[in-house]
């Protein structure tokens, strides 16, 4: 890959915009109960903010922000959060992914609401990590460099 040339405009704009994209991504994930959005969309936005830093500031700064060896483990962790939510419900006497048996809230509707939140967090984490990992793999750069 071509070495990163220091362009002050690209550096400044991307480092200003990236945190706001990240904040909006978290809003999309955690406000998915009330507005359009959810894990997939928010995870994609989060990954886009991380990839923007990698494109604009070079992969060294990108590695400081999100090391590429974290991609696959975090993606698996996201899927495990989803599975874990389902298995917790099963452990407390319900069926797999039956959130109304989660030991969190008092009313059934609130338990389901919390279950949806956990599931969306898992989806968002997995999508973010996997998208960044695919970008790193396609670029073919090692994490040690």
């Amino acid at each position, binding site marked *: 890959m071509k070495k990163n040339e220091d362009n002050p405009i690209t550096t400044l704009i991307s480092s200003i915009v990236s945190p706001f994209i990240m904040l909006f991504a978290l809003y999309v994930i955690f406000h998915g109960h009330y507005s359009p959005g*959810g894990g997939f969309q928010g995870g994609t936005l989060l990954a886009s903010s991380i990839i923007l830093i990698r494109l604009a500031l070079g992969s060294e700064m990108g590695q400081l922000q999100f090391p590429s060896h974290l991609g*696959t483990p975090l993606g698996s962790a996201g899927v495990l959060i989803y*599975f874990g939510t389902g298995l917790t419900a099963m452990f407390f006497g319900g069926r797999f992914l039956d*959130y109304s048996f989660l030991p969190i809230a008092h009313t059934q509707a609130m338990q389901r609401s919390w279950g*949806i939140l956990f*599931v969306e967090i898992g989806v968002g984490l997995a999508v973010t990590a*996997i998208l960044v990992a695919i970008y790193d*793999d*396609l670029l073919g750069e*090692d994490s040690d460099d």
Partner: protein
Amino acid sequence: MRSVNIGILILFCALLIYASFGLPARGDNQAVVNRAESPAGSPNAASYYIENAYRDTHTPNMVTAILADYRGYDTLGEETVILTAGLICFLLLRREPKKKKEEEEEDEEE
């Protein structure tokens, strides 16, 4: 040729916008697609979701409730597909550090 392309594009846009006026309102329980029984007589799940999604899940966004709760298995499968795609990319495309060093040594020898 270019003007014909643009003309067809504008015509198609106008057609789609005109068709969008015929769509039922969101959450309309009496619209044909959302009725408890479809015109052919088979039962339809949409009206149950519209009537009971908020009571069941305390989530105003019906789409989220259906995606993550009623259709939880489906979303689990989708997430597994994404994880599998990531793992396949990892297995096929990730280079090992050793090979790179060997290549550099070969280049130096040449």
